[in-house]
């Protein structure tokens, strides 16, 4: 049976990995929206009125 310290260490490790996964997901979503917007706007992005 794993000791309490081992369990706590594993708990923290998994929590950290989940946090990293969520952070990466959020960054990916931002990038997807950004690039997709550029693609959809195409050349019009440079021709907007000022």
């Amino acid at each position, binding site marked *: 049976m794993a000791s*309490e310290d081992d369990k*706590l260490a594993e708990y923290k490790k*998994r929590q950290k990995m989940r946090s990293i*996964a969520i952070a990466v997901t959020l960054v990916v*979503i931002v990038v997807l*929206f950004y690039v997709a917007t550029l*693609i959809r706007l195409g050349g019009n992005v440079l021709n907007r009125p000022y």
Partner: protein
Amino acid sequence: MAGQGSDASLEVVGTGPERQGPAIAVDSDDFSVGPSVGEFFELMKPRVMSLVVFTALVGLVAAPGTLHPFLAGVALLLIAIGAGASGALNMWYDADIDRLMQRTAARPIPRGKVSESEALSFGVVLSVGSVLMLGVLVNWTAGALLALTIGFYIFVYTMWLKRLTPQNIVIGGAAGAFPPMIGWAAVTGGVSIESIVLFLIIFIWTPPHFWALSLYRYRDYERVGVPMLPVVAGLEETRRQILLYTLLLVPMGVVPYFIGLGGVVYGVCATVLGGIFLWLALRVRAAEEGREGDRMAKQLFLFSIFYLFMLFAVLLVENVVAKVVG
């Protein structure tokens, strides 16, 4: 230090100034280290997801017109996430019977790795997120079809039909048949006869595929009270139904050739593979019950996967070549 408390079986740590974050009880057999990222991924049924991505890709490539490669990749990613989300929701709802079935006992919830509420939250967030993002980033027809797929799989198949009728997988099979339509809609923004044909191939393929599996796994379903056809109507009737659906599937598999969706290579492959499918279904029909019957059913089950894969692979290659050359 954790574990040095004098009385309780639970000790709260993390409340002191040297430790930040919520209290964690570690000195207990009930203490869970929490799910890993990999266990969340397992909830998404990666193997099913890969088949969904593949069929969606074929719909995407076979559709007339073009979609920017980046948006096509986004569409596939979101379709995969939507499919994975419905897998997680299916595991959440079916956790009670998954624990009792040999085929599903090793899933993350029965193993105690992921709690039911975690699976539910994960599935809901991914479902809503994938549908909204597909709608906004690609188009709303594709988004609506993905929502329909997830809703159909969870509400119609998992919650309603699966435990109610032996026709569960006949109707519920529609959920697995939508992905090529979503891929097609991502490019064209609509639904057409060609995408409906791709839908129908998977839709009609599902019953003989699943019933072949259930012929040698029916005791699992019997134990948990899921009315799969062999449990309710017997093995003989199941074999007859497999043959009937195969007789429908074989001509349906060739239809893409006649409507111009597939070329000559596709037509030949669909005919030959359809013939083998029919031959195996006839062997299953004629097989004696017991080990021999199980072996035939297993053969048919494995071939059915190969059959669908090959049909869609040939369609994919033909359409890629046509787009590159023409």
